[in-house]
């Protein structure tokens, strides 16, 4: 099945493009021949029932699966403007991760100070100049709409923040290194409604500067924040399209069933 024959319907610049992407956990094929474009400076969201492979797909983009033995990619993710296949063996996963950052489901600040959490990505890149780091940390915290709340307590532990603040701290950490693409894996599912709202607002602001790919199990959220939406089901990409179109008149019966709560 290939739902992507109409994928060049828009003329927007591409940031990345999955081509015939399959993925295996050992012998278990979790992704089946996925094709999907990711447009630059847009928010693309992935929806689908639990276990359909959303996280698996997302984690291909920063080669997270390389951390565990027995995982195998097939196909390619073409990354623009380099036109390089992110999954190629010749590509260094560390370089990939330096350009594509990720925010996780559960906020996972390091048990270090707020400042050090944000500075970590810079330190990893060998940046040591205090003034450069200071500036970038401030910029990232501002970008994550957290600067006002923490500017007087940069030395405190990240874990002392509230859940929503922690998640914004993680976003600041991911932002600090000027990524080209940011991956979000259900970033609000562990947060309360108010924190969720603030993160959603933030994501909407961020797309001015960076391309965003976000997994969510919450269709309402996808509808609210994304420009494009992809619906996945058991490892397959069922439908991809402009968000409004997917939610209002999906092309495929499966998508419609899921969106109206009638799949099974």
């Amino acid at each position, binding site marked *: 099945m290939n739902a992507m024959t109409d994928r060049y319907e828009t003329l927007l610049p591409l940031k990345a493009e999955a081509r015939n992407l399959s993925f295996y956990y050992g012998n278990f094929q979790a992704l089946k021949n996925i094709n999907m474009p990711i447009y630059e400076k847009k928010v693309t969201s992935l929806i689908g029932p639990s276990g359909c492979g959303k996280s698996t797909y997302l984690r291909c983009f920063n080669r997270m699966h390389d951390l565990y033995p027995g995982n195998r990619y097939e196909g390619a993710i073409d990354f623009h403007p380099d036109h390089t296949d992110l999954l190629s063996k010749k590509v260094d996963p560390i370089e990939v991760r330096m350009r594509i950052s990720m925010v996780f489901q559960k906020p996972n600040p390091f048990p270090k100070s707020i400042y050090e959490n944000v500075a*970590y990505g810079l330190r990893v890149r060998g940046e040591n100049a205090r003034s450069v780091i200071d500036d970038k940390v401030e910029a990232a915290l501002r970008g994550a709409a957290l600067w006002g709340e923490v500017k007087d307590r940069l030395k405190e532990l990240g874990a002392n923040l509230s859940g929503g603040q922690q998640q914004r701290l993680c976003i600041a950490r991911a932002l600090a290194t000027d990524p080209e693409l940011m991956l979000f894996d259900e970033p609000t599912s562990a947060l309360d409604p108010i924190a969720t709202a603030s993160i959603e607002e933030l994501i909407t602001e961020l797309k001015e500067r960076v391309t965003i790919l976000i997994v969510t199990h919450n269709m309402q959220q996808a509808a609210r924040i994304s420009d494009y939406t992809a619906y996945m089901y058991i490892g397959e990409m069922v439908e991809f399209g402009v968000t409004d179109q997917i939610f209002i008149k999906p092309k495929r019966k499966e998508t419609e069933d899921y969106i109206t709560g009638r799949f099974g």
Partner: protein
Amino acid sequence: MNQQELQALRAMIVAHKRWDTLFGVIGILALMLGLMTFAALFADMAINGLGRISVDFLTSFPSRRAANAGILSAWVGSVLVMLVTAFAAVPLGVAAGVYLEEYAPKNWITDIIEINVSNLAGVPSIIYGLLALGLFVYTFGLGQSILTAGLTLALLILPVVIVATREAIRSIPQIIREGAYACGATTWQVVSDHIVPYSSAGILTGVIIGMARAIGETAPIITVGALTFIAFLPTMPFTGELPAGPFDWLFAPFTVMPIQMFNWTSRPEAAFLSNAAAAGFILVLMTLAMNGLAIWLRYRLRKNIKW
């Protein structure tokens, strides 16, 4: 559910909870047995030895006269040997633990290392002494020195440090690792910036258990050539005559607390037996101080680490 059934249910619960209470009591008793034994042994040493404990006891060298004998060379030796042990065992054990948890592929080499580590935990200490005599003293030519003794004990406690390190590393949530990798860190950066700092509390526990054992060991230390009578201290860095380098003390002859104790327990005069008790008392105090320091450190470290 009607009233009758409810009554039966309640009766059954009361019966079950009786066992709970019983076990609670047994548990406290068992715990008390352990703690009381410790208290009794400690009190016994205190009673027999307290008369001998004085500043003189701590600042005198051994002597044939029980009343003049002290443990200066012994406790200094113990402290120095423990230093070497800690400096050798901690990096080695942590490195090994980190390798096994963060790097090792799941293959037979890893399995062999794993079996080896737990097997070494059961090798009697005297065999380490024989090994060290052949290896450190003769093959490497380190002599019968503080360095040799420290390294021997380091080998002895290595398995404990490794096991504790691995357990501590395992308790770091995977999500923290992924967070660091996602920032573009290399494996080594993840290890040195995150894994080791965050597991240091657990590593400390292992070090403490290991060091408590090492500080009381005799047999391997005698085998590698610890002395019994030694009435001078190793040259401390920068205090000796000029040619003495800062590391001369590593190669100095030495004795340690347990050896002094064993020697005194086997002397005929009863006065030496109270010396032994006093030395034992101080040895336990040293262990206690070491433990206390570590427990405090562990507490400080844990306070800063929340997942």
